[in-house]
């Protein structure tokens, strides 16, 4: 069974989403909140595609025989660029000084989609960092609310260290302790949640800049040419 992705035939197994089938076929659909290890979430909307003329998130729409899916069209990449700009301005992202620069999916996707400026006015939210944990640092300024850490901690680590609170533009990541400090949770540096963050919120301490800028993941090849 197969469907067309940007005019190319992509095989699929019934039950697979468009994203899963595309990944298996080595095709890149831009995404941030999706990771093949975890249940689809569908919140970042970067993977918005056009299925037989209708918009849908590739990570949640099931593949069907003969469907015609637009992915990297100018129209869709334009929408994705705007979504990226939204993510950049709602948080505080300073790529040049960020430890995750070069390993960051948000930054890499922005390069891939040729985002040249943030376009919108910055929101400059006030988001204090949490350095309480002996081995991990949380810099909430960079959070894009993808909930990968929420899912990894809950579904893989069985710990529920992370959760979301607030609503609307005030939605924010919290940790599972009344003090609000990561040190007061059972988070360990070996948890899956510690390494799942696509941006630079969850960082290992004392590892800063161990790999030099220029030798990092997306310095070597653009995100669209890397295994997903």
């Amino acid at each position, binding site marked *: 069974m197969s469907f067309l992705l940007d005019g190319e035939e992509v095989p699929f197994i019934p039950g697979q989403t468009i994203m899963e089938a595309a990944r298996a076929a080595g095709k890149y659909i831009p995404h941030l909140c999706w990771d093949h290890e975890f249940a689809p979430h*569908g919140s970042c*909307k970067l993977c918005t595609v056009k299925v037989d003329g209708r918009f849908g998130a590739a990570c949640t729409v099931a593949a069907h025989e003969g469907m015609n899916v637009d992915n990297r069209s100018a129209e869709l990449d334009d*929408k994705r660029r705007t979504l990226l700009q939204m993510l950049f301005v709602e948080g505080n992202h300073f790529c040049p000084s960020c430890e995750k620069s070069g390993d960051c999916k948000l930054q890499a996707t922005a390069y891939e989609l040729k985002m040249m400026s943030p376009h919108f*006015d910055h929101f400059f939210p006030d988001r204090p960092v949490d350095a309480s944990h002996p081995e991990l640092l949380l810099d909430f300024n960079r959070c894009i609310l993808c909930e990968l850490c929420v899912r990894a901690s809950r579904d893989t680590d069985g710990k529920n260290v992370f959760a979301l609170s607030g*609503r*609307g*533009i005030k*939605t924010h990541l919290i940790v599972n302790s*009344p003090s609000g400090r990561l040190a007061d949770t059972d988070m360990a540096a070996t948890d899956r949640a510690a390494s799942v963050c696509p941006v630079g919120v969850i960082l290992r301490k004392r590892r800063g800049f161990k790999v030099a800028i220029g030798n990092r993941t997306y310095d070597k090849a653009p995100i669209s040419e890397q295994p997903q």
Partner: protein
Amino acid sequence: MSAPQHAEITDAVLGRNSRDSTRLLQILRQILEAIGHLPKTVLVQIARELKLPYGRVAGVAGFYHFLGLEAHGHYRVLWSDNIIEQMQGSVELCEEMCRRLWIEPGRVSEDGLVSVGYTSCIGMGDQGPALLVNGRTVTAMTRERVATMVDLIRAKAPVASWPREWFAVTDNIRRRGILLDHGLDAGAALKAAMARGPAAMLAEIVAAKLRGRGGAGFSTGQKWQACRDAAGEAHYVVCNADEGEPGTFKDRVLLTGYADLVFEGMSIAGYCVGAARGLLYLRGEYQYLHEHLEATLAARRSAGLLGKNIGGSGFDFDIEIHLGAGAYVCGEESALIESLEGKRGTPRIRPPFPVTHGYLGHPTTVNNVETLACACLIAIRGGAWYAAIGTEKSAGTKLMSISGDCARPGIYEYPFGVTVAQVLADCGASDTQAVQVSGPSGICVAADEFGRRLAFEDLPSAGAFMVFDDGRDMFEVARNFAHFFAEESCGFCTPCRVGTSLVKNLMDKLNARHGSPHDINELFKLQRLMQSAAHCGLGHTACNPVVDTLNKFRPAYERRLHSMEYEPAFDLDYALSQARQMTGRDDAGAHLENAS
């Protein structure tokens, strides 16, 4: 109140709710009502007792407007910020109240006595300005009432001792049709349905061509059939009484004077789909109706209309009421189900739809209050009779909640197909500039379109009908709606979370006379993105009022533009205002010559 007292109250509330984690929202509400805020120690206790992670409890408390982790005042006053009530002077009254209390809106007074702020429309558009004080509804506010209320707050008089007439909510039924004049005794419709049998009753609903009254207009018969056919251990009926669309208050009136009909409709739905349990999700703003609804349920139980083996038929059915806590998005059926399960009200990924995977994963039919009430009429008089009323694709009648610039605001029942002009004439509106049909997420209709019909074929509506006369500024209307959506976005998906705030900011920028035609293009661009990429209907429709008014009332925007070319967003003179304040200067030399 001391920490041990908090613990004792929490323990009692947990006990009353059987330490059931799906009742988390109800537990938080009840504790808030008893204590006045939600201390962390209480959240820790809840998490421990319900065996939930602390973050989950804090996440739920942080989602709903009426909950929240910060301390509220001992008196918490929330003014309804519906545009209609703003037109009636709610903002000036709220400012007056704040001035008299020496507080800033949205902030708690230094002594912790009182906070005054705003909340989204509380469903009193026909008798505003209205407010909530510690969850209780006060209508028809005036300057005199503000003055007396401030005195009562200062004197620390319990809300229960305040003048009774302040809490009066009137029905204002102006035009009755088959629904509001039903003339049925409690139990008659259920008896008729049971005489038909479940399959035949469902066939009548299909034949009646009944469509959902919440606005989307999905076929009720198809929904019930899909739910009935879905495999599952248990089936559920959910009544969506989360009437949050600004300007809508018809469900409030149905729940007040027609509660038996609504509950009976739920029973009929349960009978058709094979459910033994019904849940009514009552919006938090209608808390004052809770007691009355529980009393109606109790009467129905004693009459043998709810419970085991109803009418000796072997049909078991009972109904439970859940209260919301201030979240418009919970009107979306999958978000409502999440909320019923005691979670943050975030819409689910669909498919699967609730008819197959709903409450606790079981097949669930979610229906609007009015839809369920209509089912009773169909049980008695049959589908063919019902389908003959209204228009080809919109059978039956529709309740309209009319508010704004008209002589007789209130509830009007019309057969589908009535023109906007007819409704305007009936409610005593003159010099009408525009009508917002179905609230902010609906359609703004200009004077040259008043011949259009209220029906799914033309102007679909959840029931709001907001009237604006020639003296109103349609830009201000759209700006109010933009603020509403930014406040009510659940924050789950990027386009809606950030987009609603960007739209709000752009509208404020235009209002501050710093906009340019570029900003107007930006509004169109954001609308296209949100309509195509948002996760649910809230985001899809959030730009409707802006785009509608841009297309139909463009001069209201353009007169706010300084230049048709370019206007910098940065105001140098404004930037100096802090320096002026610090140096205590306000002379001419402290201002820029070209200041606006």
